[in-house]
């Protein structure tokens, strides 16, 4: 893990010099978009990829962050940079509230959580549209001064996006390697078993969700000033949650770096619909997951027992792991032709 952390920080430091390289401003804006999506996809993956609780509400918390910054900066004249932690905090708070209620209910599992978060998006959007927070005309931020962090405004936004992306990626990495992360993956594989094994499932899910929402909020805060005109129509679309899901799944949801690969691939616009289909058909663990498998297979490392003749995609691992397969065919068969092994006990070693 230390190596990965060093690589990230080194890359971050290197990338931070870009605004001073004298490139045309447009490159900074394109990179801003890439970093923006990396941050969104990675923060989404923190809860949804790791624990399997797919949230369709990432847009809601991104939007809460956007409007928090917009309101604080225009209504209360708070300097832009100070609004960012506020944006994160407010989004995290709402995430925690929603999670506290949702996760308490025992029967709320995967699909119900997806529905709840999707519904939350509509609720938040309508509330904002119908109250003085927006009320209809949108919030115009052109009067808000852009802080002079970089040599130009585009450079500043690029650096802010870089900072948020770094923050998100480091968080994802740290969680991945911690007990917290292991617990989340255990919840993904079998929540009941995880509970029996002593994982505090409620606290972990709540924590991951709040963290994920908070990070999305900060991304939103930065975006508010980047677009400078915030409207509910542009903010709360179905496109955002759909895009982050696709980016993370494409890159690989079980690895902290998967969403980075996915985000870059999709933003690069190199992927048309056809290529997307072909990629996922042949690389079900996602681009990164597949790449790591090849890499490890070539190095002959670890005792990766390729799980079952029918690969169970939910168990794509990013590193050497020992997998014991305990199959209970009567209880957990899924679709015709597609067999899922639910009773897997996975002990990740040395990730």
């Amino acid at each position: 893990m230390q190596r990965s952390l060093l690589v990230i920080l080194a890359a971050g430091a290197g990338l931070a010099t870009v605004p001073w390289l004298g490139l045309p401003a447009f490159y900074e804006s394109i990179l801003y978009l890439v970093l923006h999506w990396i941050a969104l996809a990675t923060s989404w993956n923190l809860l949804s990829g790791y624990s399997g609780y797919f949230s369709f509400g990432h847009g809601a918390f991104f939007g809460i962050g956007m409007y928090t910054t917009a309101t604080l900066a225009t209504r209360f004249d708070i300097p832009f940079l100070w609004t960012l932690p506020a944006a994160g905090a407010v989004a995290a708070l709402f995430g925690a509230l929603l999670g506290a209620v949702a996760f308490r209910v025992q029967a709320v599992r995967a699909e119900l959580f997806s529905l709840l978060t999707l519904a939350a998006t509509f609720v938040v959007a309508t509330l904002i549209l119908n109250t003085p927070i927006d009320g209809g005309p949108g919030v115009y931020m052109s009067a808000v001064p852009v802080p002079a962090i970089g040599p130009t405004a585009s450079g500043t936004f690029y650096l802010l996006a870089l900072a948020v992306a770094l923050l998100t990626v480091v968080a994802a990495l740290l969680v991945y390697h911690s007990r917290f992360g292991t617990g989340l993956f255990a919840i993904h594989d079998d929540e009941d078993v995880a509970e029996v094994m002593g994982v505090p499932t409620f606290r972990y899910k709540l924590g991951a969700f709040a963290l994920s929402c908070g990070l999305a909020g900060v991304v939103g805060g930065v975006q508010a000033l980047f677009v400078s005109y915030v409207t509910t129509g542009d903010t709360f679309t179905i496109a955002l949650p759909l895009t982050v899901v696709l980016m993370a799944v494409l890159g690989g949801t079980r690895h902290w770096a998967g969403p980075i690969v996915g985000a870059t691939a999709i933003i690069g616009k190199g992927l048309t619909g056809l290529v997307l289909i072909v990629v996922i058909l042949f690389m079900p663990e996602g681009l990164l997951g597949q790449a790591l498998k090849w890499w490890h297979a070539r190095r002959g490392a670890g005792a990766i027992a390729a799980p079952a003749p029918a690969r169970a995609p939910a168990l794509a691992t990013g590193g050497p792991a020992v997998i014991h397969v305990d199959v209970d065919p009567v209880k957990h068969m899924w679709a015709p032709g597609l067999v899922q092994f639910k009773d897997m006990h996975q002990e990740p070693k040395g990730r």
Partner: protein
Amino acid sequence: MNMDRRSFVAAAGALGAGALWSSQAGAQPSGAPIKVGGTLALTGPLSSTGLVHKLTGEIYVDSLNKRGGLLGRPVEWVLKDDQSKPDLARTLYEQLVTADKVDLLIGPYATGNILSAMGVAQRYNKTLVHHTFGIPNLAKYDQQFPAWSIGPEPEKTLPALVLTALASSSAPPKTIAVVTSKFPSVHFVALGAREVAKQRGLQEVLFLEWDFGNRDFGPIAGRVKEAKPDFIWTGAIGLEGNQLLDAMKKIDYAPLHHFYHVPAPAPMLKAPEANGALSMTIFEDHPPFTNNPVAAEFVKVYRERAAGAGMPDTAVETQAAASFTAWQLIEAAVVATKGLDDKAMAAWLRANQVDTIQGKLRFNERGNFGADLSRVKQVQNGKWVTVWPADWAAPGAKLQTRGA
């Protein structure tokens, strides 16, 4: 605003004739091309209107190059696709200015994207002429110029125009219902309509707002029917007007007078229940607008090329006219200042009036908006016909009242 139509036609005719038959006609432009950069929504939800602007721009640049280009040089339009997204528009305008190093800018489609472009223009001190900006009080940059001349306070002037037109009809309304989408550029004008109606002594019997993206207009139509207004002001954009009319038809309700702010023009013409619907326009494909030779030539070419491209609507109306006007403004500023200096062009525009196919535009009021050149048009027998003010109305056309 009562424009002397005859003097306008004379002036525009002179300009137009001059432009068409200038001594440079036939002279091949030569030298390094002048690059005009901009984006449009070529894909995404706004793309059906984006394509109207693309076609208009192509027609204008072709004709400009046939007339000798600008300053004797050929003009090249560097057009990129912003996919209807404001953040992408911003990025692409930065590319146009800093990487493609275009000489001049022209705006994208619709308010949100124009704001993004305006921000970039402001950072690089470029002048931005744009064609479809709907919220004048957001236009704060002094080097931006709107081609769609709705005036600095459309929320006051447009309802006043419409209500004046209705007052001259055979059944002037006494009650009004204001129903509107919460889409920013129509919402604030609808709120203004409430105020103006109140000032003129109309009684408001219903006020409703819906979320842009609403699918079900049944209950809204039901409430309108129950309120029985003489006049419905509908803050509708795109298909919303049609959806409301459709829903009203389904419950057997046909309003007496009805106005739709910025409807998608073609669908309104096709629906029989839309007969008599009013809307706002700055230009229509009929005299007296087409008495201007430049306009006449444009509508002819547009009709041919739109038909060739398989577009369902081949008539020039507000969108195409606003776009054409934007190009006219750019050409006028370049020719007048004999150069490509953004600040000089901006100064000249602010101090002068420009003859365009809409009429004379000026930019000396708040937000660089000037006169409100809006007119009122009506669907009559499957065609949009200007009905008010009288000097811009189609020959012999009057505002028709249902059943009158």
